[in-house]
């Protein structure tokens, strides 16, 4: 998702995170911390809500519109959940967290940045391509650099 978002704007203030060791029987899975991130784009708005922290304590609250969307399209409250412009919704991860488990965050980041081809980077890039396509349908194919 982050890779896709950077094609439409600038994401800053993000941090490094990981899922709890043993969650769903996976070892630590590196991920992004977008809790304090800001996103600027002339094409789209982005809202990230972290439901709970590592100790299962609630983190972010939803506004009324977000609540209505979740109640309507995600009634079983499956998380992670992605919703794009009333056109697409995705429940769960787009690829198995097992592909990234036990890998240091920096290693995965370097592999992605350098264009290294392995199962994990291919899965991430395929997912980014899919999300980019969804967003492009919402922006009417803008910008061309992302949607061509």
């Amino acid at each position, binding site marked *: 998702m982050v890779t896709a978002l950077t094609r439409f704007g600038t994401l800053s203030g993000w941090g490094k995170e990981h899922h709890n060791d*043993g*969650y*769903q*029987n*996976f070892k630590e899975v590196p991920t992004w911390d977008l809790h304090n991130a800001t996103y600027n784009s002339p094409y789209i708005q982005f809202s990230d809500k972290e*439901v*709970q922290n590592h*100790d*299962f*304590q*609630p983190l972010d609250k*939803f506004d009324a519109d977000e*609540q209505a969307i*979740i*109640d*309507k*399209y*995600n*009634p*079983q*409250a*499956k*998380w992670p959940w992605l919703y794009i412009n009333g056109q697409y919704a995705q429940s*769960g*991860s*787009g*690829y*198995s*967290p*097992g*592909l990234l488990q036990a890998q240091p965050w920096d290693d995965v980041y370097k592999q992605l940045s350098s264009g290294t081809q392995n*199962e994990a980077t*291919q*899965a991430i890039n*395929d997912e980014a391509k899919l999300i980019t396509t969804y967003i492009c349908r919402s922006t009417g194919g803008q910008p061309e650099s992302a949607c061509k």
Partner: protein
Amino acid sequence: MIAFDRPWAYAIAVVGALSMAALLVWSGGFLQYYARTGWEFDASLSERLSLVVVATLFGALLPLEVTALSKARAAAGVGSAGGVLGPVFGIVSMSCCAPLLAPALLSFVGFSGTTLLNVNATLHELSTLLTLVSIALLLVSIVLVSRTVTAVCALPTPRRTTGQAAH
């Protein structure tokens, strides 16, 4: 054991256990399909253990319930607290306290997604305790229903007859 003296009882137990396991897997969202890697069973070790234990106990409870119901019908009037409380404990353990099942059930009865997010967070936090309560309630249920079956099947004390004809 009286409830397991017929082959169909084992069939009911196996079908019940497998059905409960399937329900828990579906409800817990443990079975995931990923385009790249195919089907995965994504559950933590404690979730796997809970699933196996709850499904096995449910499988053991089912033939007992069936036997208790059929025997109770045959001997109407031989009732006990266990006859009523056993199934009640069984149902309560699966509906209230099984953290794997609760989100799907609550969604089914109309809880909204955002409410469920908070419920899920609480369930995660209390999952160990709730699972233990679930298992304890299932065990209590098994004990109570077993007592009912035993009470219904106990032979009445034979009356002594003298065989003397009245003169």
